[in-house]
């Protein structure tokens, strides 16, 4: 549990950090994923660039119908932010499910999305929220959708030299009901499956359904078939039952592919039901 030797720098400005990262430095944010990997020597960066001291990366800002969240904002800050709780409750609820208090006090939203663990919680919510991820390099800046950002297991749209600087989520309409439901892998606390649902109703009908799923497969995704079923009036359980359709489910010590797919349907139904109850 001893990492290989590495150089460490803790720049104060984003420009400085991006220059170091362009030069091959590995970004370090909350360290909740990177440090354990380094200790197990599964990761052995020569140079580590700590983003924690860059003030311009830590913020939660409401702006023109969106909430902008700086990359180094901790899970705890998201969970407890008055703005996010009031205007994007799904994200706050999801943050509250991540790991334990210590992890939430250090782990960050930028680190979580960049790490792209297929069992991480945020990605389900970010998919359901149709969030945007702001990416910067020393000489570049672009914004991609969550769906384009999460490419594969531990793989994102980030190019070498780029970092996540911001996550943008919409301000939720007050009538929208949302819920995140998660089955914890009992050892790690990560999601065996996690389902984030957003529902809007009008005249007794579901007019908008967004369902993000994590833990089930190689990447978090939007369950299109379930969403369509819901908006075309299918009953909740039947809609949830197609959540794993055409998905190649993961398999591990805690859940085989078959059991995971089954659980995804159970948790999708729970999330959708809870979201419907919260609509107004």
């Amino acid at each position, binding site marked *: 549990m001893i990492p290989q030797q590495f150089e460490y720098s803790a720049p104060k400005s984003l420009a400085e950090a991006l220059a170091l990262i362009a030069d091959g430095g590995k970004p370090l944010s909350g360290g909740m994923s990177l440090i354990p990997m380094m200790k197990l020597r599964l990761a052995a960066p020569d140079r580590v660039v700590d983003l924690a001291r860059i003030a311009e990366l830590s913020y939660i800002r409401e702006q023109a119908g969106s909430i902008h969240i700086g990359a180094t904002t901790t899970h705890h800050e998201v969970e407890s932010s008055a703005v996010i709780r009031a205007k994007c409750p799904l994200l706050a609820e999801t943050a509250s499910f991540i790991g334990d208090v210590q992890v939430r006090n250090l782990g960050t939203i930028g680190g979580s999305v960049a790490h792209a663990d297929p069992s991480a919680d945020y990605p389900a919510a970010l998919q359901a929220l149709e969030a945007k991820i702001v990416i910067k390099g020393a000489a570049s800046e672009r914004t991609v959708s969550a769906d384009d950002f999460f490419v594969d297991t531990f793989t994102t749209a980030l190019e070498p030299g780029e970092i996540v600087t911001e996550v943008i989520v919409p301000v939720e309409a007050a009538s929208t009901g949302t819920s995140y439901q998660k089955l914890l892998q009992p*050892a790690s606390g990560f999601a065996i499956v996690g389902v984030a649902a957003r529902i809007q109703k009008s005249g007794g009908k579901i007019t908008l359904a967004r369902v993000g799923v994590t833990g089930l497969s190689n990447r978090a995704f939007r369950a299109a078939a379930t969403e369509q079923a819901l908006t075309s009036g299918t009953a909740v359980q039947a809609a949830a039952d197609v959540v794993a359709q055409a998905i190649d489910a993961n398999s591990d010590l805690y859940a085989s592919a078959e*059991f995971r797919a089954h659980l995804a349907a159970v948790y999708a139904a729970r999330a959708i039901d809870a979201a419907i109850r919260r609509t107004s």
Partner: protein
Amino acid sequence: MATPSITKLEPFIGKRIRRKEDPRLITGTATYVDDLQLPGMHFAVVVRSPHGAARIKSVDIAAAAAMKGVAMVLTGRDVADLACVPCGASLPGLRVPEHRLLAQDRVYYVGHPVAVVVATDRYIAKDAAEAVEVDYEVLQAVADPEKALAPGAPAVHPQWPDNTAFTFHQEGGDIEKAFAEADVVVKQRITSQRLIPSPLETRGCVAQWHAAEKSLTLHTSTQVPHLVRSLLAQMLGLDENRVRVVAPEVGGGFGCKLNLYAEEALTSHVAMKLGKPIKWIESRRENFLTTIHGRGHVDYYEVAAKKDGTILGIKVKIIQDLGSYHQLLGPAIPTLSVLMIPGLYRAKSMCADVVGVFTNCVPTDAYRGAGRPEATHGIERMVDILAAELKMDPAELRLKNFVRNEEFPFPTATGLIYDTGDYAAPLRKAMETVNYTELRKQQADARKHGKLMGIGMSTYGEICAFGPSPATPAGGWESATVKIEPSGKVTVMTGVSPHGQGEETTFSQITADHLGVPFEDVLVQHGDTAIVQYGIGTFGSRATAVGGPALYYAIQELIIKIKKFGAMLLESDDVSYANGQCTCAKTGKSVSIKEIAGAAYRAMKLPANTEPGLVATYFWEPTNFTFPFGAHIMVAEVDPGTGAIDIKRYVAIDDCGNLINPLVVDGQVHGGVAQGLGQALWEQAVYDDNAQLVSGEFMDYTMPRAHMMPWIESGHTITPTPVNPLGVKGVGEAGTIGASPAAVSAVVDALSPLGVRHIDMPMTPEKIWRLILSKTTGSNA
């Protein structure tokens, strides 16, 4: 000399006193092995096999040895002349593999030590260890004990192609007759999976060689410092009195530190060779891979009974996964299971066959309960299965078969003599606590509403207070020295080696009451062979039940001497001693222990035939084990949609005899229950077909955590043992032993309407879900 009025000191025994140990633990100021810093200290890192089975073709240490800061690299060849890691278990025909400090030409499990690298700091040592190049020819491995026994399985040790380390047979009563007379026979395969003990503090040691004195000091995280000293001295060819072993603060053991490990000898050897203090600290990953595992049973049970529920006989075949080597007690553990097979029941006939199997895994050895949880789990499951077969209430069946109160001391079919008991009492108390009759009604109701609610129970016995010396490999006695200092303060040196059990507190309570001194005046020392006379250590729920009586008798001896000095000072030959005062019956005058101590050390004048000083040492040999017992009841509900188990209630009633400190006892029971539920619900060491440990870190191995625990309603019945003067029986393992069968019983009971009679541990959601699916749809999902 004053004549104070003698006030009766309030008794400390029986009080919920907070532990003396806790302030240093809570404030983080305790000194563990890794806290030690010695001038010139170097660090050792062990290079380990990544394969379950392989031939070592070559080891290239050149790159590692050339690294700046590296002081020494040793491989198997360098330690080929040193003695092997000892196996303390002796069984007829036991095959004992040569367990060298470093692998010679083959490796037998993932984690097997291949080389050791020593450097000026632990970072360099770790980097250099990575630079050691080992060329392996990977061989076929076998990790499953039943597969290892199959013909044609890869041989773990080429010289023993059947992978059989030993077989062991024990019989009692007339088993043929029992089965011939039976109205019903129930059979079940029951497993008790491999578990990873996982103390908070991993293993670690610091060895320091004093060349001029030819003496070695080893600080090591152990439960048995004196045994480590004796064994290490033998291994390294040192004089025993020139080896000092210190167990500083030890962060838990659960049996896994009841051993001498290769790394302790290796670290010592390197310290002697290099002339530098050497520190080795096990990483958590190494702890998973290389510290002994527990359990590892596959058992085949058969129980014969009469229609009315009378159990006649029990047959069992035990397959014990031993791993690749024997650690100190490994092969002896399943023989403890055999002793425990009759449980609390009167059945007079039994028959057990054990086969110890080599696998390409880390050795198994004593783990909280050591052999007894396996047996208790098996027998309690079988009693439930018999109850289901006979359509009897499981509590009723138990009550019918318990050894009766008037039958004690009760000789068992396995040759033990149960000391004392009132086996129905804890079960009745547990049933009252949950209001059993009402609860069964609620269950019937719940079932009508389609709910899977279960009420489970276990009634367990234990063999504790190891033990009479003939039954314990290194001696089963314990020792205590009680020293009253010239100032009157009292120092106790005990041979047990507490590492979380709280004997600094409980032994202070015993001393305070029996010697009649203030609780705060007592200091309990342990764990240092240079301070403590000699001792066996802490394991097998023995510390208070064997170390406590040793302390008690040392105090009695001391009181004789105290009274002699008291008589001299009071110029009377009719004195009594109580509450720290010697009192003359005639004059009513008294002297305090402080005055007596002063006189005994100043020694201006001595009583006849009496030497100065106030010290007594007592080595106490018990005449029998103690046999605590108890009953657990668990109520659970199963979610058929997810297979999740929700524990609604958990009641643990234990009878460990007299309670020295109920707070400490509750702590032991709670921790034990957590460990038992851990096995029942979550924990499992999983090796794949290549003998790679899949559950090799805490991200994959589910340790129970506080938030996963039910509220534990613990209570006691008190049946003091006649085996020792304190009437204490031991409680360290009880919770673990009682919990796993109660938990499985509850879940099986919940699923019993579907026709389920047994579930193997751990009862993971997927296992439960599939079981429900297969019973409700007939599919083998």
